[in-house]
């Protein structure tokens, strides 16, 4: 039989895929079954375009307790505890409805964490928007930020860090990636399994409505002018309900009455039932008429595909039902017995006792299609990688450049954003947003965890392999600056339409680069998320593989922050500056260019630097540490002064390797000040520790040089002995700290 092409298209299925369904079932699917297949085989749930590439990532290590495949990854942090973490995207919903899209993104990732038996203790987010002079972009960003705040603040999990980038390509397709970390007892990690025939399956949480039906397939379809039709899919978050679920589920988990648990996220009841069955080697049978419903007249199809938020599916040990029900009642939640575990490995859906769908789990999960999609190097690359500084004309004065960089939203302080997030609730936050990687202590131990999410998408655009390596290196370096030894990573891969060979090429190269970097830095990837089809009218976003890295501090008291701490401290530059302006913030801000070759990255050198940073911190030898990233050494120096109350007096060397043409065109100072060479960090240390620091750096094989001294009220930088920047610290700090807020508040007198 040939299926109705319109029906297939609406379900995002190809004719080949339809044939596979028929083969798997041995018959034509019912409409409900078709819906179930469509969501499980969507890009979002099946990873059909990305799976072959993701398989190559390093996912194991002595600390790894849970790698990819569960709701979140987990690494051992000692003291019998595990750090459980993951990052996830909510890009498409956040464009359609910024507040609710972002809010439900936060809700979803939190559920992934507590589902594992971990108490969520920290959130981060990585955001991308179009340029802020566009009022619609401002509206989107304001909505996203307040949505994240609205949900995270209410549920009481601090948002301790994040990053925000801006580029034209995100105007019609913002990125909203949310990272959550929880802490669990290492021997009490709970899995999303259904097993033990006859064990009851419970539904608990919000009632099911027609929310987000086809949300999972929507998340895998590019935006186009048919957007309006897809609109009724918007889900509304209920952080209060989730708080109740969180507390109640953690309480249930402390009993041993639970077999497995999974949240109903994308693809809702469908995904949770078949994935739990599949992981447990069992089947699940449910009757949808028992599912609590918010709206009348819902069909089995709608109930199975609904993406209403704040719902959980639990498998409980037979005989322990009353105990579990009682705990939920305490929290005013009603756990409903909607089905049972079976032995037949099938997902069986009934409606008032009548079977409306029956599918082998295997067909929905492991046997979902996998594509090795064609790849081709994008045409833009060769041209974009050509950069002639000399052709840009004479550069502006360094002080002017520095001011414009500090005022650019990407580099400017994100204060306007993170003051809207409760970043201190739970009284664990040792390093608040804006002061480097977020650091939270682990109560009951002497330890702390440092967290960072990073990606320089311009680097990835210009060289996906190298750019993704930079993302790993930068996130890990941020964590190391705080004193944390990187022990695990998660990633969120935001790319365009994988059916275009050049996008697939970007994707594959980025995954290769990420894998190689994680291997070299010995940071296993324990999970992640892929978001494809991030395009507007056929134009993809900058390829944006965001890395989230978790670092461990054995001694929380040794934590290190970004800002200088004491006048008279010596400023030491670790690493070496080469003339590397390709893909830099300088080119972007001064010349509106994304061009050139990204800075080289020697992973062995990077690893030595990070080890040194951790060593210096744990030896208590540093007063402050900050990595040099966007905007180079000059921006990093200024940032070390901000929030410290101090200025700085510095003298730096010219950058290595500037070509003679650029040198003649006057780019010497620019290259020294604004090159974004990798594997560098600025630390400050008391005078009497300088020799110890330099000795340890030498022993570690990391170039180190005293470049200045903390103090005064000016930011003064000399290149090769000639002062090229001499500005008031307060004036620069004013520019940097208010730049973003001025975009939003410019019209509103602060009454």
């Amino acid at each position: 039989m040939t299926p109705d092409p319109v029906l297939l298209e609406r379900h995002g299925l190809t004719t080949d895929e339809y044939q596979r369904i028929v083969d798997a079932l041995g018959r034509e699917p019912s409409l409900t079954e078709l819906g179930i297949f469509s969501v499980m085989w969507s890009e979002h749930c099946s990873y059909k375009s990305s799976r072959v590439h993701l398989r190559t990532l390093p996912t194991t290590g002595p600390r790894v307790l849970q790698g990819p495949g569960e709701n979140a990854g987990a690494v051992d942090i000692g003291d019998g505890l595990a750090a459980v973490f993951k990052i996830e995207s909510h890009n498409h919903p956040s464009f359609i409805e910024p507040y609710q899209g972002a809010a439900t993104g936060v809700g979803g990732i939190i559920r992934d964490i507590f589902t594992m038996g971990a108490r969520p203790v920290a959130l981060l987010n990585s955001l991308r928007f179009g340029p802020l002079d566009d009022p619609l972009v401002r509206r989107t960003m304001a909505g996203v930020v307040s949505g994240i705040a609205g949900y995270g603040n209410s549920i009481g999990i601090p948002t301790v860090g994040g990053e925000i980038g801006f580029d034209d390509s995100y105007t019609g397709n913002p990125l909203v990636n949310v990272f959550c970390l929880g802490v669990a007892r290492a021997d009490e990690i709970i899995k999303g399994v259904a097993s033990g025939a006859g064990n009851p399956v419970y539904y608990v949480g919000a009632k099911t409505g027609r929310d987000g039906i086809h949300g999972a397939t929507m998340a895998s379809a590019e935006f186009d002018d048919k957007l309006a039709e897809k609109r009724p899919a918007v889900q509304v978050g209920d952080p209060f309900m989730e708080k109740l679920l969180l507390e109640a589920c953690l309480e249930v988990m402390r009993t041993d009455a639970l077999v497995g648990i999974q949240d109903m996220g994308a693809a809702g009841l469908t995904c949770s039932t078949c994935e739990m069955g599949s992981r447990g080697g069992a089947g699940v049978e449910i009757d949808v008429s028992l599912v609590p419903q918010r709206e009348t007249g819902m069909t089995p199809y709608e109930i199975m595909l609904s993406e209403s938020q704040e719902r959980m599916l639990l498998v409980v040990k037979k005989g322990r039902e009353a105990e579990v029900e009682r705990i939920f009642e305490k929290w005013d939640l009603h756990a409903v017995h909607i089905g049972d575990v079976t032995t037949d490995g099938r997902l069986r859906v009934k409606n008032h006792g009548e079977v409306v769908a029956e599918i082998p789990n295997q067909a929905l999960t492991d046997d979902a299609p996998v594509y090795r999609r064609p790849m081709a190097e994008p045409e833009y690359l060769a041209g974009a990688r050509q950069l002639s500084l000399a052709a840009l004309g004479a550069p502006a004065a360094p002080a002017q450049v520095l001011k414009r960089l500090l005022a650019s939203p990407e580099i400017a302080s994100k204060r306007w954003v993170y003051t809207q997030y409760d970043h201190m609730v739970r009284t664990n936050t040792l390093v608040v947003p804006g002061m480097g990687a977020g650091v939270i202590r682990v109560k009951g131990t002497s330890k702390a965890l440092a967290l960072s999410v990073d990606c320089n998408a311009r680097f990835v655009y210009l060289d996906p392999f190298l750019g993704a390596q930079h993302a790993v290196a930068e996130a890990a370096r941020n964590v190391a600056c705080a004193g944390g030894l990187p022990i695990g990573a998660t990633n969120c891969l935001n790319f365009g339409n994988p059916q275009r060979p050049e996008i697939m090429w970007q994707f594959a190269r980025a995954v290769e680069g990420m894998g190689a970097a994680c291997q070299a830095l010995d940071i296993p990837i324990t999970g992640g998320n892929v978001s494809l089809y991030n395009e507007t009218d056929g134009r993809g976003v900058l390829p944006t593989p965001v890395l989230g890295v978790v670092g461990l501090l054995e001694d929380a008291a040794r934590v290190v922050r970004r800002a200088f701490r004491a006048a008279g401290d010596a400023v030491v530059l670790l690493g070496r500056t080469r003339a590397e302006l390709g893909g830099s913030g300088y080119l972007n801000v001064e010349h509106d260019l994304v061009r050139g070759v990204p800075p080289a990255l020697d992973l062995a050198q990077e690893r030595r630097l990070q080890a040194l940073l951790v060593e210096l911190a744990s030896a208590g030898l540093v007063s402050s540490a900050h990595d040099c990233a966007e905007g180079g050494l000059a921006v990093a120096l200024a940032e070390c002064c901000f929030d410290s109350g101090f200025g700085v007096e510095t003298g730096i060397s010219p950058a290595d390797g500037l070509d003679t043409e650029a040198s003649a065109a006057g780019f010497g100072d620019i290259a020294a000040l604004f090159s974004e060479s990798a594997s560098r960090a600025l630390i400050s240390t008391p005078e009497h520790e300088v020799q110890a620091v330099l000795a340890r750096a030498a022993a570690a094989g990391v170039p180190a040089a005293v470049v200045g001294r903390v103090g005064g009220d000016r930011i003064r930088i000399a290149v090769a002995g000639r002062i090229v920047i001499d500005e008031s610290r307060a004036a620069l700090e004013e520019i940097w700290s208010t730049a973003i807020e001025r975009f939003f508040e410019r019209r509103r007198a602060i009454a």
Partner: protein
Amino acid sequence: MRARVFVTLKPSVFDPQGTTVGEALHTLGYQRVTDVRQGKYFELEIDAPSADDARRIAAEAADRLLANPVIESYRIEIDAAAGAPR
């Protein structure tokens, strides 16, 4: 002239606030309140020559700012008598 704009969530959109208020009313003993939906209410003082004019301005304001068309709908009432500016 005063325009009253009522903004409500579309019927199919989940209303956690209204649901919670409804539950609270039940706890307080108001079992006969079977459903609660919560919305926003705006009073706009408009300097307009006619009720039609005021309605048009209010509708534009609602479309552009007061209501979020993705999840909300709105209704306007004009009260020509009310509304000396406060």
